[in-house]
């Protein structure tokens, strides 16, 4: 799970990125729509998001109500379509409610890190010279730790809990995003169009706001979306280790952990939370891939 984090992909500097010019997002959407894989992933994610939002209405049972009499029923039991867990709670309901945690844990830290890390990287890249060195070497200290280890260490130090897990994941994602932002900004800064804008009298702020931001946000955004799945998996890992969400909350990673003991009794039920994590994270990755090629205007 850390491979995606440490091996920053070589991002092509932009053919295009968000801009105020009308028509850009329309054309990105048009290209995205023609990509069946990305659209499939988007539909899957949309279903999960809907399930998370509508959980109280669509879940067939109370995800917290346990019953010692109905423990570990197999998939397909009447009244429990996906079986029950080791405390007799309805698996389907717990998986539906679990989507709330997983999506939140996937998106929130990455969104926060996109804001913070992106700002750090863009400022460092645009300033260049010593400012760049000072900022990026500091970031590198965090970067030196494997992401899993850093997340575990931070969560351990901050104490278990949902909020602390979010915070530690945010800290984990700031360095890689800052790095990408810095390298993309450094590339854009030396482009002829920035020089041309300077030659037509643009001040540093205009250069940064119009020409650098316009060209840099797209690649940083695409890279960040690819981290959502990593974040989800790390969050599940933290919960699995008892450092994230606490029982009895129906978080997928945590469910995977508690069902571990039942793996010889009901292997299929025990595997369900893992399957959910797999489906959602791969959907995020596929959508992010599709977005990357859709945002490349030069095609």
């Amino acid at each position, binding site marked *: 799970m850390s491979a995606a984090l440490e091996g920053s992909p070589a991002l092509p500097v*932009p*053919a*295009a*990125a*968000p*801009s*105020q*010019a009308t*028509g*850009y997002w329309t054309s990105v959407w048009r290209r995205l729509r023609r990509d069946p894989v990305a659209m499939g992933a988007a539909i899957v994610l949309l279903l999960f998001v809907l399930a998370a939002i509508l959980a109280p209405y669509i879940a067939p049972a109370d995800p917290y109500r346990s019953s010692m009499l109905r423990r570990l029923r197999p998939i397909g039991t009447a009244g429990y379509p996906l079986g029950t867990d080791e405390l007799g709670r309805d698996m389907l309901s717990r998986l539906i409610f679990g989507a709330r945690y997983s999506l939140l844990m996937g998106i929130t830290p990455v969104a926060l890190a996109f804001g913070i890390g992106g700002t750090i990287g863009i400022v460092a890249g645009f300033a260049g*010279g010593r400012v760049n060195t000072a900022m990026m070497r500091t970031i590198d200290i965090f970067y030196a730790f494997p992401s899993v280890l850093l997340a575990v260490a931070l969560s351990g130090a901050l104490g278990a809990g949902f909020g602390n897990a979010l915070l530690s994941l945010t800290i984990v994602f700031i360095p890689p995003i800052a790095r990408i932002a810095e390298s993309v900004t450094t590339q854009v800064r030396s*482009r*002829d*169009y920035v*020089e*041309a*804008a*300077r*030659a*037509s*009298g*643009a*001040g540093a702020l*205009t250069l940064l706001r*119009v*020409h650098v931001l*316009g*060209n840099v946000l*797209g690649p940083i955004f695409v890279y960040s979306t690819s981290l959502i799945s990593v974040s989800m998996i790390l969050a599940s890992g933290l919960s699995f280790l008892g450092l994230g969400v606490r029982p009895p909350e129906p978080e997928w990673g945590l469910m995977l952990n508690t069902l571990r003991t039942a793996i010889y009794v009901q292997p299929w039920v025990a595997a369900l939370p893992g399957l959910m994590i797999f489906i959602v994270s791969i959907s995020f990755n596929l959508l992010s891939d599709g977005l990357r090629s859709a945002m490349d*205007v*030069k095609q």
Partner: protein
Amino acid sequence: MSDALVEVRDLKVTFMGGARPVRAVDGVDLTLARGEVMALIGESGSGKSVTLRQLMRLNPERKTHVEGSIRVAGEDVMGLSSARLTHYRGAEAAMIFQEPLLALDPVYTVGAQITEAIRRHERVSKADARARALALFERVRIPSPERRLDAYPHEMSGGMRQRAMIALALACRPKLLLADEPTTALDATVQIQILLLLRELQRDLGLSIVFVTHDLGAAVEVADRIAVMYAGRIVEEGTARDLIRTPRHPYTIGLLKSRAHGALSKGSRLEAIPGSPPDLANLPPGCAFAPRCPLAADACRAAAPPALDVGPGHRARCIRTEDAAGLLMTQAA
């Protein structure tokens, strides 16, 4: 001279970034009258682009040491405050670049970029700025200009992009246009069109143009005067006609002879200048061209030759201009 728009005196530009300082421009004097077109020619690393960029103060100031003076329209460019400098860039002097695809921002339409440039310098409404952009597009003869304003750079052809780039440069009605190899990245047929367009705009708008090229043909096409640069110095300067007909510096003669022109018959060898350009961080003490010069004498290697008048408005940095004239004769025969 009151009609001089650009006056450069003893310009020296040294880059401090590397292990050893590199003097890219070594004592350049330039005078450009209003409405005059000057071509700076020379091979890669001769300092022509650096000179041009210094006219805009575009060389990275932290890493560059600049001596000498640059005056444009009576203003001391090197002494401009940053507020005056942003006005100067764009409204007094503007620049067009070699590769328009790289010099236009890919994420904005060309219309948006021109409008932005106009509104940066003048308080006009968006609609007025767009109307001016449209007029500029017509001026540089972009077909269906209304539609092209909303095109992204990658949606245009190379020639059209360069026209858009010229429109962008002219957006704030500069007096001085600097062109850094404006036709190098274009097809041969498009090159001529762009050169003719530049010439026409210069005449109609009374622009002064300094343009850098390594293409002698292009220089002759549009320039009133030509300055030949070698190793950071202007080695010969004169009217386009004088320079082509009666070149006096052995380097200029070498350049002229190394052109593949129409008279070159099949099977005949193309004359080349032997050797390669000198290392700017480690220049020979005398004339920088001496190691490659067929006429080099001991005196050439001892001290850098001064600029000597060899005709009206025609100067060469060579002490053997008399023999150089003969060099051209013998080769022509």
